[in-house]
């Protein structure tokens, strides 16, 4: 599977990563290489084989519904570039 310039530009935008125009071609080549390397897996016949989700047979653990965490707003906003009255404060986003 080959990735073109436009696709690289699009996924960069979706991931909010700034990619300069001049890097698009090189990245398209790199990503295409990675994808075609992984694509070798499709040479295997996996008909009737369920996808493996874990290397050991474990079940998804479930916890009891109890309040065991939270209650430390100062810690939560400690790294905020800006915080006001206990809220994170970010440049206005409004519809």
């Amino acid at each position, binding site marked *: 599977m080959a990735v073109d310039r436009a696709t690289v530009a699009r996924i960069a935008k979706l991931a909010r990563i700034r990619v300069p125009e001049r890097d698009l071609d090189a990245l398209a080549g790199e990503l295409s290489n990675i994808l075609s390397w992984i694509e070798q897996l499709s040479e295997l016949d996996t008909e009737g084989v369920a996808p493996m989700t874990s290397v050991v047979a474990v079940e998804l653990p479930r916890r009891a519904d109890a309040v065991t965490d939270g209650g430390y707003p100062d810690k939560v906003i400690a790294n905020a570039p800006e915080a006001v009255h206990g809220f994170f404060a*970010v440049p206005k986003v409004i519809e």
Partner: protein
Amino acid sequence: MADTNGGLIQGKTGPWEMVIGLEVHAQVIGESKLFSGAATAFGAAPNSQVSLVDAAMPGMLPVLNGHSVAQAVKTGLALNAKINLTSVFERKNYFYPDLPQGYQISQYLQPIVGEGTIELDLPDGSTKEVGIERLHMEQDAGKSLHDQHPTMTYIDLNRSGITLMEIVSKPDMGSAEEAAAYIAKLRSILRYLGTCDGNMEEGSLRCDVNLSMRRPGAALGTRTETKNVNSIRFVKLAIEYEARRQVQVLEDGGKVVQETRLFDADKGVTRAMRSKEEAHDYRYFPDPDLLPLVLDPDWVEDIRRGLPELPDARKARLVDDFALSPYDAGVLVAERETADFYEAVAKGRDAKLAANWLTGEVFGALNRSGMALAEAPVDAKKLGGLIDLIADGTISGRIAKEVFEAMWESGKPAAAIVADQGLEQISDTGAIEAIVAQVIADSPGQAEQFKSGNEKILGWFVGQVMKASQGKANPGLVNRILRDKLS
């Protein structure tokens, strides 16, 4: 879809039919969040109910809340839906300030609940079945406050990570009334189950409206999605506005653009959301931190056996047990508390009379006072006491309304008020005969009219006798005695 009752819009070029599907986000009742042990209570101080998982600190791992799973299964079973014994949590990727992870953990290709059905109770007393497409679990986002500062948005993550059930209907609704009935019924079921409190004001129940227009019976048109419409009334307004807007676009030779819109409650209009202009690509993929969720069929059966009586079953039972009309029964079962109150009053009494008093006097007094049924000064036992006094002839229906008001004011039982104020109905034949004789003697002209065949004048006589007795005379006896004495 033959049923277009109320949903047809007459355009310049002919009729158009609405096709509506709803996505409802219901906040699950529980102590803690879907993947963290932080609390879920409404109205706490900002960011005080946030764990490092909810704040998306690096290296934190989500651990699934078993109660949330049970609540979703319970809801699925009540919607007559297929429970998928294997479901998968996926990451839905997008950026927004109130979504610290940069993705929402949701379910996509394999939701926990598949297809089901819900029966709507329509205002004309008929019912209509609407399909449920799916129900899946997902994390709620945080809350953005845009109106606190001129250039900043404030973010509170208390809501971030609370369990939501997204319940998606099939595009089976054809009018704003049907959409309203759908939300009302879904809300009622969720409240009976105790899986969501249904509080639309606090945002525990939120609705997105998918709507397209077509010529009656034609293929589906292009739809728009109107987001976060937060009351049943707004859902109706948004649908009516959006349907007319689309008809105008189509009749002017244009094309409806598939887009996300917002309902502006102040102006009563929908408008395109700027941020969503670029088609979203959520790049879903299975969350590598979470294994597939596998349910034990016996555990699902245990939940099924534990389901409470639901509104439809209760409605059918009220119709059978108390000979109520489907409409009356529908009104009474919409809220579980109302149905409990009703059954307590109606048991062993005149069921229709009990229904009338509850939906008439009690609902009226609640509306006037702004109280909830649970706080009413007249509880089921007291209302029952009042109805007993009507049934055994102690008071007339008219006096009963006065007694009810006194009960509402004072909280006293009906019998005490009747005794204190001497309101007992006069059922003593002799006493009534005396009053009747007096009234006839005072009105010889009217008595003559009755004898010459004017039956209508009897009503006037009844009124006079009731007035003379301060409303306390037994109306049945008054009628009989008047007829005797006049002829």
